[in-house]
């Protein structure tokens, strides 16, 4: 059965017991993303801490990611995994992880994910076989990217 390949236990665990859920302050920026085909949505906040007391840039640390959302197990679990992976990393590391995850999602089931980079997120490899669900898996990640960009833009405008 292909379902088990898609709904790995890790995914269902994150869905039932999401990590870092709820919107928190302080935050630098917030992004609200919607999947127009199904109506799933996520509101995601990012708090960044400058690397060495300097300005916010690629070296800044992602000090918090908080979110509220409603949607299917894939979108909710994927956002929960994201918070585990990205909190405490630098923006540059986070972007690299995002890139690796996006690549895995676009692999049509052929991807060979690097577990050192993606950790629990490798569980989503099975999702990439179902084009209609890839958007679900990427919903929170795209919101994260958007919120980080907004944070850095705000910094640039300061």
């Amino acid at each position, binding site marked *: 059965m*292909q*379902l088990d390949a898609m709904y790995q236990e890790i995914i269902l665990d994150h869905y039932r017991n999401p990590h870092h859920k709820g919107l928190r302050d302080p935050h630098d920026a917030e992004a609200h993303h919607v999947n127009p085909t*199904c*109506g799933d949505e996520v509101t995601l906040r990012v708090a960044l801490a400058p690397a060495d007391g300097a300005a916010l840039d690629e070296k800044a640390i992602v000090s918090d990611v908080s979110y509220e959302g409603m949607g299917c197990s894939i979108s909710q679990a994927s956002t929960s995994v994201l918070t585990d992976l990205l909190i405490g990393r630098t923006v540059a590391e986070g972007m690299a992880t995002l890139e690796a995850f996006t690549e895995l999602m676009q692999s049509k089931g052929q991807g060979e994910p690097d577990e050192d980079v993606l950790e629990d997120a490798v569980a989503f490899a099975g999702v990439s076989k179902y084009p209609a*669900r890839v958007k679900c898996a990427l919903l929170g990640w795209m919101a994260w990217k958007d919120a980080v960009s907004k944070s850095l833009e705000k910094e640039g405008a300061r």
Partner: protein
Amino acid sequence: MALREFGRPGTGPLDTQAIRKDFEILSRTVRDERPLVYLDSGATSQKPRRVLDAEREFYERHNAAVHRGAHQLAEEATDAYEAARETIARFVGAVPGEVVFTKNATEAINLVAYAMSNAATADDGLRRFQVGPGDEIVVTEMEHHANLVPWQQLCQRTGATLRWFPVTAEGRLDLSDLDGLVNERTRMVAFAHQSNVLGTVNPVAPIVARAREVGALVLLDACQSVPHMPVDVADLGVDFLAFSGHKMLGPNGIGVLWARRELLEAMPPFITGGSMIGVVHMEYSTWADPPQRFEAGVPMAPQAVALAAACDYLSEVGMDRVAEHEHRLTAYALERVGAVEGVRIVGPTEAVERGSAVSFVVDGIHPHDLGQVLDDRGVAVRVGHHCAWPLHRKLGIPATTRASFYLYNTLEDVDALVSAIQDAQRFFGTRP
């Protein structure tokens, strides 16, 4: 062309097994060799071989650009196109001069909305189509986006006000304020004949009667009714009727706008260009008579011919028998799906004034996840908001799962659906 024997129209139940043989796709398997259980006809129907043959035959024998050229193929193609218009018109009790072909039903509705928009900046000869500040357009909360967004946009462009009938908790239109909502300021009332989510068949007569009292136009979105029940424009008494070909065994790429002839004659065009003109000068142009006025460019003749073949197919089966068959399936589905613990039907729970779209929610399982398990079992359904986002918001649910039936579905298909729902409950550990 050999005609299938379905029995005399209007008598006896359908021979579903004979019908299914005409639909090649229904015999294929999906996802690990599971037989396909296609319960997504509300989104698009499957096509019988005869419809595909009609399109192929047009291309192989008669292909030419219609209403252009004097060669034999152009004549044959034009004859075939106009004969198709006759067949399709007859299918809804209309005459050919009242039938306009569009890309799809969405374009048909936009055609009317944009004709009204274009009239807004024209002289007062087009007063009956003009809307502006102080005027109102009335829709319903259960509309498909195709019959909502064009009117929203028309109101935004012209300053008119959009109003809507609310939907009751049971999924019926709340007509208690009919006289207030449809009033002297109302210029257009646009609503679905049958909801694509709830299955509700809306009461056309009282709304048309009220619209007549106040001189408002009426457009009926018949996308979910024309494929599934006998529809006669004269009986309905509306001004405009829009439906799509691909939901009624026909091909993609063709929709129909029916309108009363005198309205079409008065209406300004929506899309302009070739073959919709009277004369063209560098400074100005005049318009052809309808329906050509609304069919700019080389039209979709092969699709029109194939849609006519679909109408013939449905007529031979008998639309009353199709409706009766779907009624049986709907009643059975409402009973069986509704009886599964943790499942709630969204829409009327009795098969009264109700078509065959059966939407539901399952406790603890998001529709996307449910759809995935159903798909794994070979059961194809639609999940999401079904292009009726405001309706879902009103009902307080982000999304639903929808099974929709057609003449080729069987009671066993409903059993497969129920069993797959129960599998999903086991898979996600929500089965009580």
